[in-house]
């Protein structure tokens, strides 16, 4: 327990993971405990500081070694069987159309 509030709830307050209603209730309970409230604020500041210090790393360009690893990890391109079926049906239809057009041009006088 962290003061009048269970540790799980206290940490969730610090991380702003409580519903607005629960947060109001917890803050009311902590009103009588200024030390606990100050601790929650300090812990929140520390978490935000850590988040802000490390956040830019996730936006840095990847180093070449990691990029090469990612490229090497990509599976060789394999066509999707569904796409192959669609292409085959299209080609078959096109071939039939061309044959019919050719036959028609031979047997139907213009």
């Amino acid at each position, binding site marked *: 327990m962290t003061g009048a509030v269970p540790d799980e709830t206290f940490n969730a307050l610090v991380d702003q993971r409580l519903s607005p209603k629960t947060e109001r209730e917890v803050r009311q309970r902590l009103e009588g405990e200024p030390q606990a409230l100050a*601790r929650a604020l300090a812990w929140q500041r520390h*978490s935000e500081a850590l988040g802000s210090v490390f956040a830019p790393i996730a936006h840095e360009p990847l180093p070449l070694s990691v990029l090469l690893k990612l490229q090497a990890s990509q599976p060789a391109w394999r066509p999707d069987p569904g796409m192959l079926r669609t292409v085959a049906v299209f080609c078959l239809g096109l071939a039939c159309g061309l044959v019919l057009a050719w036959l028609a041009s031979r047997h139907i006088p213009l």
Partner: protein
Amino acid sequence: MGRQAEATAQRLRRLARALIQDSEIADSLVIATLTIHEARAVPLTRMIATLIGLRRKHDDAPARAIQAHPPRGPAAPADVARAFEHLPLADREVLALVAVEHLSYEEAAAVLDIGFADFIGRLTRARTSLARVVDGEHHVVLRVVK
């Protein structure tokens, strides 16, 4: 190359850098993690668990000496980061998963392969330790001596 794969690698790099100061070792941990999960689509949390497992095999560099200074105003983010570096790895793990990676408590407990109650206890201890180093129980600010 998939944008998602790049984004995953960037998040793994951020976590690795939170857990180890040497950026080259951090990148090698990311590469080792990607190698283990070679071309397989696995959840990010599983990759994070792998990275943490690999990180635990690395010894920490000897802790640098720290020196007490008179109290100042609220700690700057850089001060908090410096204090964070001095925490034991177990404390850095829980804080990094929650404050840097923003995992839910359930996800973070699963990554560390511990029960929920243990996780909450560890998170509370880690925050207490960090606050002790940042603010100083004896009203001192700890600074790194280069």
